[in-house]
């Protein structure tokens, strides 16, 4: 498995501000993903973070709201822009390493509360 860290682990933010979440992996990975888990809900894929190019967003998620960067094979950021209380969720990154088979491993998550 991969060792994945996320920063911050939690934050409380004011409406209208932005927060950038970092995801760091201890080794190179093929794919990196960002998920949202709203309170009491399951995980929903936001986007696939592509190294050196624009992220691939799922239906209902747009780059202006959730800009994503992936400058190299071990690091990605997700920004939650112009936040509203509806953005209060856990945000998780996950990774997929081709040599490790087809299992996605998850980071510890970032708990975000927007007031």
């Amino acid at each position: 498995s991969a060792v994945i860290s996320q920063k911050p682990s939690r934050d409380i933010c004011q409406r209208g501000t932005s927060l950038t979440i970092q995801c760091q992996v201890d080794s190179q990975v093929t794919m990196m993903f960002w998920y949202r888990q709203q309170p009491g809900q399951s995980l929903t894929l936001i986007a696939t973070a592509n190294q050196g190019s624009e992220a691939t967003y799922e239906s209902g998620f747009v780059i202006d709201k959730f800009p994503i960067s992936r400058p190299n094979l071990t690091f990605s950021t997700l920004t939650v822009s112009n936040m509203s209380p509806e953005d209060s969720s856990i945000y998780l990154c996950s990774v997929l390493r081709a040599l490790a088979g087809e299992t996605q491993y998850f980071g510890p998550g970032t708990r975000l509360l927007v007031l």
Partner: protein
Amino acid sequence: AQTVTQSQPEMSVQEAETVTLSCTYDTSESDYYLFWYKQPPSRQMILVIRQEAYKQQNATENRFSVNFQKAAKSFSLKISDSQLGDAAMYFCAYRPLNTDKLIFGTGTRLQVFP
């Protein structure tokens, strides 16, 4: 559309007993992967077990085993000798071969009583 259904929002089990969590999925694919993830209160998603659809043998990991019924599109998780540390949300997930995306069920909250 590919969907994953977990019909049990909550389950409970006595310590040392056995519990089975159900999961069904809908797909027209013949090859795919199935997973069970555990999310304790710490919110870390932990892989419990995975199954490749082309394998007829049910996957087993220590106290955790699955009952994979491909024709019925059913993928249940059996936890034997339940421990207090097994208390968590359990998510069933599906992944077709032609994509890297996981499709999650709505989860089952498992409580373990001493």
